Structures are given as structure tokens and as C-alpha cells.
């Protein structure tokens, strides 16, 4: 019984983790058709923002929930202006440019902060379930992720801003005809996506610590989740995480995390063989 509860928590945790690390990437990809290879580094920068500000006396929660997304959002703003905008519409080229950015950011952070692990301790302590001990912070992470998904859905579907954004994605020409500046919408979108990645990095920093190369630990999973999800950003990502998360959780539990990750990739490749446009393809039709 206790074991079942712990396994269920582990599953929920994996779903939440996949969703959290993928959301920013998914929004940028879904709205702008931009594959951001520097996504892992955005997470890394969010982590650094959190750890550094927390170590300078800022409250950890504020560091995670405010400083990290704000910092990375601003970085996203600059990146969009310098790299994304000049290449807009050129998918492969953008991919290569963000790849360069990713390497550059790793180099920059290594040069400034050194190649060592920095960390903050996880807040909130543990609870025990039978003989097992579960970190409360992990449970909070699940709740925060759920709230984030809800917020994203709300903003996209229920607000004026979301309507403008979705309209622009559907038809940029039409949007500019009715007085919306698509360039601004894309800039805002990229910023929002970057901020979400930064937030993810901030929230994960207490669990793993930060190091310049940490992005690589997340991007495989994030990419796999996003492409399995397909073009329906939030729902697609959530359903992909819902399928892939439990698989990883169970396999990591039964074997090792590396096997879990390999299985994740195999599952995604198999899934794409059946649904080349990802899970969203199920309800969006096409050739």
C-alpha cells in the first residue's frame, strides 16, 4: 500500500517534471515554429539566477518564482531581437543559431562562475509514508506545475492576449491587417517561453544544484516530450508527459534512470512512426 502511494507520487512527479521542463520549449515551438536549442541553457540560467540571488540573501521562494523567470525572460527578450527575429521563418537555420547560442551560454557561464556545482538546500523537509520518506518540496513542485499548466491554458484560451497570440499564429497577415503587430507578439511569446524555462530552472535548482552543463541533462527529455506532444502546445505537452512520465517513472524504478531515459526516447520514436505530427495529430488531422 505504502509502496503503491510512493510509486504513484513518483509517477506524478515524473509527469510534472517533464511538463515543467518542456512548457517553455513547447510554447516557443508551438507558437513560433522555433526549436530553441538553447532551452537547456535557459533552464540553467534560471537555476543560476535562483542560486545566486538566494545566496545573496533573497528569500528562496522569491528567487525561484520571481527572480529566475524575470532574469531569463529578459535574456529571452535580447535573444529574440538578436538571433530569432532576423531568422524568422527559417526553421533549420534558427535551430543552428540557437545551437550556437547554447554553446556560447555554457562557455559564458563557465567563464564567469566557474565549472563547479553551486547549490541551495531544498526547502520544507520530508514527510514519511510508512517506511518511505517523501520530500514535501517534490509535492509542492507537482502543485506548482499543475497551477502553471492551468495558468497557461487560461491565458491562451480565456484572455484577450491569448486570443491575439493564437490569431497571429493562425494567420500573421490577417493579424497585421487588423492592427496587430506580429513581430511584437512573437517577441512577447519568446519572452514568455524563456521566462517559463527560467522558472523551471529556478524550481529545479534546489533539487540538483547548478552547473554550466546542466542543460544537457534536461533537453533530451524536454525535446522528446515536445515533439511527441506535437503542435497543440499545452495540451499536447501535457498528454505527452502523461504517457511518457509513467513509463520513465516505472522503468527508472525497476531498472535505472538511464534505462528510463532511453525508453523515453524509444517510445517517442515509435510514437512518431505512427503519428508523425505527434499526439496533437490525433485531433488535428492532415495528410
Amino acid at each position, binding site marked *: 500500500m505504502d509502496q503503491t502511494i510512493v510509486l504513484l507520487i513518483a509517477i506524478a512527479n515524473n509527469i510534472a517534471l517533464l511538463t515543467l521542463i518542456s512548457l517553455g520549449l513547447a510554447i516557443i515551438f508551438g507558437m513560433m515554429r522555433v526549436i530553441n536549442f538553447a532551452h537547456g541553457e535557459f533552464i540553467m540560467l534560471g537555476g543560476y539566477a535562483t542560486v545566486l540571488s538566494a545566496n545573496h540573501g533573497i528569500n528562496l521562494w522569491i528567487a525561484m518564482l520571481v527572480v529566475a523567470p524575470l532574469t531569463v525572460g529578459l535574456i529571452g527578450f535580447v535573444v529574440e531581437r538578436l538571433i530569432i527575429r532576423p531568422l524568422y521563418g527559417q526553421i533549420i537555420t534558427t535551430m543552428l543559431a540557437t545551437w550556437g547560442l547554447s554553446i556560447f551560454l*555554457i562557455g559564458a557561464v563557465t567563464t564567469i562562475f566557474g565549472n563547479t556545482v553551486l547549490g541551495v538546500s531544498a526547502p520544507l523537509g520530508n514527510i514519511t509514508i510508512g517506511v518511505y520518506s517523501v520530500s514535501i518540496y517534490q509535492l509542492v513542485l507537482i502543485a506548482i506545475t499543475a497551477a502553471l499548466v492551468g495558468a497557461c491554458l487560461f491565458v491562451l484560451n480565456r484572455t484577450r492576449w491569448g486570443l491575439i497570440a493564437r490569431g497571429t499564429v493562425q494567420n500573421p497577415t490577417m493579424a497585421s491587417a487588423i492592427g496587430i503587430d506580429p513581430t511584437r507578439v512573437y517577441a512577447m511569446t519568446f519572452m514568455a517561453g524563456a521566462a517559463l524555462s527560467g522558472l523551471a530552472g529556478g524550481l529545479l535548482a534546489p533539487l540538483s544544484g547548478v552547473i554550466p552543463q546542466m542543460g544537457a541533462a534536461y533537453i*533530451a527529455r524536454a525535446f522528446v516530450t515536445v515533439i511527441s506532444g506535437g503542435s497543440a502546445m499545452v495540451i499536447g505537452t501535457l498528454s505527452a508527459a502523461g504517457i511518457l512520465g509513467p513509463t520513465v517513472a516505472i522503468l527508472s524504478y525497476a531498472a535505472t534512470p538511464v534505462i528510463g531515459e532511453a525508453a523515453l526516447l524509444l517510445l517517442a520514436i515509435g510514437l512518431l512512426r505512427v503519428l508523425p505530427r505527434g499526439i496533437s495529430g490525433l485531433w488535428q488531422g492532415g495528410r
Partner: protein
Amino acid sequence: MERLKSYAFVLPILLLAAIGPSVFEMFGLVQISNFATMALAVLGLAFVWGFLGVLSLGHAAFFGLGAYAYAITVINLNESSFAVMAAIAVPALFSVVLGYFLFFGRVSDVYLGVITLCVTLVLYNFTSATADPSYHIGAAPLGGFNGITAVPQLNWPGDAEQFLEVETTFRICLIVLALVYAALVALRRSSVGRIMVAVRESELRSELLGYDVRLYKMLGFSVSAAVAGLAGALFTAVNGYVGPSAFDLNQASQFLLWVIAGGLGGLAGPVIASFVFQYVSTYLGTSGVNTDLVFGAIIMLFVLLKVRERVPALWGRVLQFRRPARRVQAFTPSARAVESGE
């Protein structure tokens, strides 16, 4: 005449192979052998990306698989000839399986790049996590993050006791580079090669003419994997070591950078670029500057400049071998991917 000209690049390589041992010290020979194995690896990527329009971000995966396959086989058999064959076969087979899912699943170019990259990352994480002695294949321990050390060098075929001297290994690396270069040029000039270029130009038209686009892509993908595997084997033989770093992102970025800088659509350009950048990289390494910082900036710069078509003017004059970039969407050879927006 024109035909001979397209093979001309083998001459400087062979010349280097001939005079190298009398010009360079031992250290220089080993270093150039290293450069040559990397140049060999990048030929595979330059081929599949430049001629077929398939951007494989996981080229390092095939290189690493070849490197590990060589190390494991040679440790178990104490004979390098068969190990080299294994290093070609393993990545080639792996690419066929992967290619089946990617090309026959009609996965878009973007997804192809992402998945090949993820494969590399997973292999990196996997090999890094094999430190436990229980991870071994035959007599070869995988060694986790530290990799496999003390891998035997190349030996004379059939005579496992007689290892090749540094000079001979050096010559073999360069001659293999020249041979593979010539083979890829010949492939490019053959009917199959012309159809591959056609696939790059327009998948739709090729398909409507009756060509099985998926098959040609898979074929090209496997050729590139085999070349990368061979390069991995030579690399391991030269260094006596292979580790997870063969799969890491730096490795993958280096290959990309060399093709971008050397010119997409050519073969000689990327080889030259690989030599230049490897030299720069060792220089930076000794001067304490962070190479990631520099190479990341260079990649961004090249991509941004190339899109504005400034690069051919700057760079094309230096590298006469290279055909000038033909269109603005320099890195998107497949028009269909652009149209469908995926």
C-alpha cells in the same frame, strides 16, 4: 578534365601523408592523425547534409558508436582489422534501424534533427552511467565516465603482435581520408548521387518521378554513419582511449561548425575547416580561453552572416573548392519542410 578536377583535393592530403613523417615530430604526427580522423568524420556529415539535405545532429552518435565498437572488439579479439570492420558495421546498422523509423515515418526535418540529437544525448548519459564493473562486454569494461582506456592500436592485418608505428598510423589516417573523400566524390557523380541531390532539391518532384525518397535518404544516412564509425575507430586507435565525450554536445557542435564554416554542399571545405578549427581549438585550450564561448559565438556568427549571404564573398574566395551558397535559406535544402511549416 572537369572530372579529374573534382578529385584534385586528394593530392594535398596524399602529399601530407608522404612528407609528414619527415617534417613533423612525433607529437605533431599524432596530432595531425587526430585531426585527420575528425576530418574523416565530418566528411560523413558534409555528405548527408550537403548532398541529401538531411541534417543529422546526431553525427557524434555514429562516431562514438564506431569508437566504442572498435575499442570493445579489439580488446576482446586482440586484432584490429576486424575491429575496424565492426566499427563501420555497428553504426551503419544502427543508422538503418533509426533511419527506418525516421524516414519511413516521414518525420519532418526539424524532428529528425531533434531526435538524432536526443539519441546522442541518451548514448552519452548511458555510457557515462556504466562505471560499475558489471557493465562490460566480454573482456572490455565500459568504464563509465572514464571510458575505456589502454585500447590497443592498429596492428598489421593478420599479425596481432605487430603494432603499427606512429608514422604508419599517420599515413593510414590520411590515406583513408583521401580514399573516403574520393569515394564520396565518385558517389556524388554517380546516378545515385545525382538522384540524392535531386531529393535535396525537391522531395516532392523526386517522389512524383517515381524515386523512393525515403530509401535514398536512408542510404545516405547509413553511408554517413559508416564513415563516422570508421573515423571513430581510427580516433580510438590513435589515442588508445574512448569515453562518453565522444557523444557529448561539444563533439556534435564541432561537426556542425566545420560543415557550416567549410561550406554546405562541398566536401573539401569542411575538411579544411576541420583542420583549421581543430588547430585553433588546441591553441585556445593552451591559452586558457573557454572554447565553448568562442565556438558558440562563431557558430552564431556564421549562421547569421550566411543568411545575409555575406559569407560567400568573404569565405568563398579563400576556399575555391566550395560552391557558393545558392539560396538565402542556406541551411534548409528541402523546400517541402519549409512549405509544410514543420
